[in-house]
């Protein structure tokens, strides 16, 4: 078992993949947080697709002008230029034409991607780029040059993000305030776009054009479900990026699958697991919260049942009037004891002063509704049932009826309508 974990670690290709992948995933997780919060996920896609044109252009220029074969810095610069040009084109088209931004992104990134594909195939005697490598990535075939590129990119981007963390935070959260205190918001936007481009460029060689967005977005989104502070979110996102690479690489070696695919599958599973289990924003906790929620109607029905009998009422007696499932009854009673609406008296439940006030409010609403219903000609036998439904409407409704009906004392059955309780002070906020 141990051997299964240790054996790949002795292989150079695996070590390189692990180091390179982790560095790239760490930085893309961190920068991805800003991408997620600014809703620029599509931009990552556009950038990665634009890259191929840039790489082809860079390759061609270096080869034709300087005679250098597959010059890495040249291709890097080319893809950066292509990325920034794509972003500029997108915002230009979205601003000037009636075409909206999402469509503009779709047009531009496919267009520039296609241009790259055409260029690579037309100049195939000059350019030796493997398109498949580009689209799928090849993390296990990572070269030392790739390692250097990704290491440098990670250092630069992390330095920028850490140094200007506060500025990125405020420009993302409230650009107007950022501008009002004199921050160069537009410049920060360009700086961030450049950072994203750098990260995308260094990640494409590992996971490929198509999956790079996953590396950018998914760890950040996973962290988003767990944190209420941007700095914590960034740390967690970096961590999730690294765990995706480690987990994905082992999956890849064990199953002998494609590297990029395995990483993103692992990353997505990680997201799904966190989404299910997250303590605050997770599915499970949401479900538990909903389950624990006691419907106001149950509470009000129990209160009025006890009020009407004017004494402590055993649970079985309550159950004959309030028709809810035994489980729901247990939950409602426990909740009401906790909230101090009820008090246990011997075998039964009695109203606390707070509970009695609450119950009187509901009863008052009930009788006002009955009076009103009788006045608009509702058949007498339907009065109670209809009023029973309507009594749960807000207090305002009851007061409206009270005004409409004039100062009434008795309901149609000749019973007294409880006075309105002294107005409670509205809660702050």
């Amino acid at each position, binding site marked *: 078992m141990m051997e299964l974990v240790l054996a790949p670690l002795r292989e150079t290709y695996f070590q390189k993949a692990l180091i390179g992948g982790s560095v790239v995933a760490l930085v893309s997780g961190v920068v991805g947080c800003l991408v997620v919060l600014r809703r620029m996920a599509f931009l990552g896609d556009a950038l990665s697709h634009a890259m191929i044109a840039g790489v082809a252009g860079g390759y061609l220029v270096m080869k034709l002008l300087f005679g250098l074969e597959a010059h890495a810095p040249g291709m890097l610069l080319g893809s950066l230029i292509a990325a920034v040009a794509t972003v500029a084109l997108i915002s230009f088209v979205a601003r000037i034409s009636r075409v909206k931004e999402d469509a503009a992104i779709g047009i531009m990134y496919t267009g520039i991607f296609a241009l790259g594909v055409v260029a690579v195939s037309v100049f195939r005697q000059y350019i030796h780029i493997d398109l498949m490598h580009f689209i799928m990535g090849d993390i296990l075939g990572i070269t030392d040059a790739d390692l250097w590129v990704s290491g440098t990119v990670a250092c630069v981007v992390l330095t920028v993000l850490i140094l200007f963390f506060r*500025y990125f935070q405020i420009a993302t959260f409230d650009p*107007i*305030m950022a501008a*009002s205190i004199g921050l160069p918001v537009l410049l920060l936007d360009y700086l961030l776009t450049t950072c994203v481009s750098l990260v995308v460029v260094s990640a494409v060689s590992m996971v490929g054009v198509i999956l790079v967005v996953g590396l950018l977005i998914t760890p950040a989104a996973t962290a988003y479900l767990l944190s*209420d502070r941007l700095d914590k979110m960034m740390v967690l996102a970096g961590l999730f990026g690294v765990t995706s690479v480690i987990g994905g690489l082992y999956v890849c070696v064990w199953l002998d699958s494609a590297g990029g695919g395995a990483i993103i599958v692992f990353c997505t599973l990680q997201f799904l697991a966190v989404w299910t289990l997250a303590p605050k924003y997770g599915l499970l906790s949401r479900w538990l919260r909903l389950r624990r929620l006691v419907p106001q109607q149950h509470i009000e029905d129990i209160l009025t049942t006890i009020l009407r009998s004017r004494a402590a009422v055993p649970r079985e007696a309550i159950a004959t009037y309030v028709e809810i499932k035994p489980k729901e009854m247990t939950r409602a009673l426990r909740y009401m004891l906790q909230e101090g609406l009820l008090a246990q008296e011997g075998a039964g439940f009695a109203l606390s002063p707070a509970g009695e006030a609450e119950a009187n409010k509901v009863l008052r609403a009930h009788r006002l509704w009955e009076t009103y219903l009788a006045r608009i000609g509702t058949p007498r036998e339907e009065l109670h049932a209809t009023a029973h439904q309507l009594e749960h409407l807000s207090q305002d409704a009851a007061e409206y009826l009270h005004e409409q009906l004039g100062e009434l004392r008795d309901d149609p059955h000749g019973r007294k309508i409880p006075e309105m309780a002294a107005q409670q002070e509205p809660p702050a*906020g």
Partner: protein
Amino acid sequence: MGTDSAIAIDVRHLTVSYQSRPALLDVTVAVERDQLVGVIGPNGAGKSTFIKAVLGFVKPDLGTVAINGQPAQKAKGQVAYVPQRGAVDWDFPITVREVALMGRYQQIPWYRNPGHRDRQAALEALEMVRMQDFADRQIGELSGGQQQRVFLARALSQGSDILLLDEPFAGVDAATERAILDVLERAKKSGKTLVVVHHDLSTAAEYFDKLILIKQRLYAYGRPGEVLREDLLSRVYEGRLRIFSDIVHREERP
């Protein structure tokens, strides 16, 4: 700052246009210090352009905006801005304390972390709006009025004398409206000038010391009684006058 005059915001002959359509036309108004000023006018009247001009975001075709005697475009940070509730992403991973601390960002050089004094100032601002007990909550967990108060705290911690609020009363209930107004009053007493974009004419007279009535051009600036006049409102709001007769009368009572 550098001026002893009683004028906080001095707008002269301000004309701003988008293409050929004037958003503001020859607006001249001088807002005195320590006032709670409401900006009213129908939709599309140029209220938001007015705000942008005071924040120094727009380049006027003509005219000047001076903040404490300085041109608005150079007076960055002297006007603290409180955004509309709808303009904020309430799911953003940020706590109440961090939002209040944001007000200090301008004073902190980029190479330094927020220090003890900054944290203290942020906390004091939160105390002023009575939100200190919520300091570690994520902002989305608050009620509408509480959210509004947190952004007020941010504006207060900025230390600016002038606060600019964009529709702080939009979409809150009456009790919350009171609570927010209470904070505005206290900010005014502590020596702030507050300019508030306001939609509800029926409360305008009650809430503000002065009103600015604009629709492209300035129709009136003065005490509510001088601004909420039937002839002015009928010109600005055109056919929809009848509903205002009630406001106008109430204002005429001594």
